[in-house]
């Protein structure tokens, strides 16, 4: 288990300044500033098309291949700007893991979903691989449910189990940050609760950014919440404060369901 000891003074994981994102002529993110703290869960909320997913995917550069995509500004991470051209996206994505809206395990056995990424990143020892399967499945609370059928297809799992497997798969390569793009929106309430519970356990070791449609979810798990609207960050503050006493009129309207 790696709990990374970076200098205590650095509390901020990402410092976003003056970020603009375009798809061709269309501007998706409009000059936002945002500071994301380490070892916290930051929820990004807002109506569809507000830019929250676009922002999330620009952190690990998953939008690089989208035709017409262009990002300008600063996403400061430790001592570098993640938007510069010379970023090694492979190393970056290893360090900043991602979990998607729809569970997307590989069409292989449950165990191989963990061992394949490990092998890909150079771990060969059989003993270590088996050990890691157990460690990571335990971390997401899946071990007791699947220990007897590690060799069956990942698709034999329920949607919620698949999503936890995907989280385990993201964790097994020791990321520092986890980006979650509406990870529970395709799941039923019980599976959702398990995922939320898991996130609360994980935040001690990882910086977590959670995009969600579900306001209650943000309220339940996030330490701070950022409200995106039409490509801008309307308000970013402590979650409790955001939901009980929002500063901005638009935040209040959104929380009370007046739009979106």
């Amino acid at each position: 288990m790696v709990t990374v000891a970076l200098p205590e003074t650095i509390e901020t994981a990402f410092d976003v300044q003056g970020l603009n994102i375009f798809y061709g002529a269309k501007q998706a993110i409009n000059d936002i500033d945002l500071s994301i703290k380490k070892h916290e869960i930051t929820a990004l909320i807002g109506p569809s098309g507000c830019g929250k997913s676009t922002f999330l995917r620009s952190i690990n550069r998953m939008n690089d291949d989208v035709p017409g995509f262009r990002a300008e500004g600063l996403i400061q991470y430790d001592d570098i700007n993640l938007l510069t051209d010379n970023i090694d996206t492979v190393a970056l994505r290893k360090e900043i893991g991602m979990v998607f809206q729809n569970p997307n395990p590989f069409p292989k056995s449950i165990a191989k979903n963990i061992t394949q990424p490990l092998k890909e990143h150079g771990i060969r020892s059989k003993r270590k691989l088996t050990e890691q399967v157990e460690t990571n499945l335990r971390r997401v609370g899946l071990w007791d449910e699947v220990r007897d059928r590690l060799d069956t297809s990942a698709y034999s799992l329920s949607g919620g189990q698949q999503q936890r497997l995907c989280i385990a798969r993201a964790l097994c390569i020791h990321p520092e940050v986890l980006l979650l793009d509406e990870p529970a929106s395709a799941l039923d309430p019980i599976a959702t609760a398990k995922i939320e519970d898991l996130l609360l356990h994980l935040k001690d070791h990882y910086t977590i950014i959670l995009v969600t449609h579900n306001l209650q979810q943000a309220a339940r798990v996030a330490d701070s919440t950022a409200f995106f609207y039409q490509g801008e960050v309307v308000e970013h503050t402590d979650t409790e404060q955001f939901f009980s006493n929002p500063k901005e009129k638009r935040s209040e309207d959104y929380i009370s369901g007046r739009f979106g």
Partner: protein
Amino acid sequence: METNLRASERLVRKSRKLSLKNPERNGKIVVYTAAFLTVVATLAVTVFLAQRGLQSFYMSDINPLEFFTSTNWNPSGDNPTYGALIFIFGSLAVTLASAVIVAPLGIGAAIFMTEIAPSWGKKVLQPVIEILVGIPSVIYGYIGLTVLVPFIREQVGGSGYSLMAGIVVVSVMILPTVTTLSADALNRLPNGLRSSSYALGATRWQTIRRVLLPAAIPGLLTAVILGMARAIGEALAIQMVIGNTELLPGSLLDPTATMTTIITLNMGHTTFGSAENNVLWTLGLILLAISYLLVMAVRFLGARRKI
């Protein structure tokens, strides 16, 4: 641990390794080469065929006008003539006639498969017809030779070896092709088209005729054109039943020849470089040009389909 390194040391790309063992780059080289090879192959086919095919005109001194318009084919006479119109006519006749026969049948069957009995069509008809697309053409020729030719001889007249036999054999051959491609075209139509038409109270036939067919026309035309491409290029099946006489047919029951059949028959026993051999290459070049034309037509229709 490397986590003690700063991000600039962990995440910034090191200068490109020039090692030969860079799978990322080697993989790219391999796939680009393969893609490039298709261009090389196409160019090679075009250049080689053009080079040989044009020799008829500049080395064997055959008059192009005569080549394309004369039916006087007598390469072995004292005063040899090379009018290739018979073969060009034969190919076009077989292709167009079979397209006219197959288009309604194939599209009709495709409508049955997609609109009338979709589940049965998908489970039974589609696989059966796809299997038939793959049956070798010599089999169609062999059946034509052993069933169709005697049938025409006894029931209709003539020797049986005839333009008609060629047309029927080719029609049977391209029918599965046209049917599957038409069914694909109809399946691609958005379901909303159907439901909105039915919601307006249209019957199935009205829906098919007023809504689905017009929307699917580019796709259906593509299906027929690809069928024609197969028809005009088919050699052995036609060769086995058409009689291979170097004469313009006076009727459907007369034997004749096509570009592909004369190539099939004469390529083996003409001397490389002789005028008689050169004209075969010219016919090959014409077939190549027709392929290009049909590909362009299909692309044109494909572009229209997106609108």
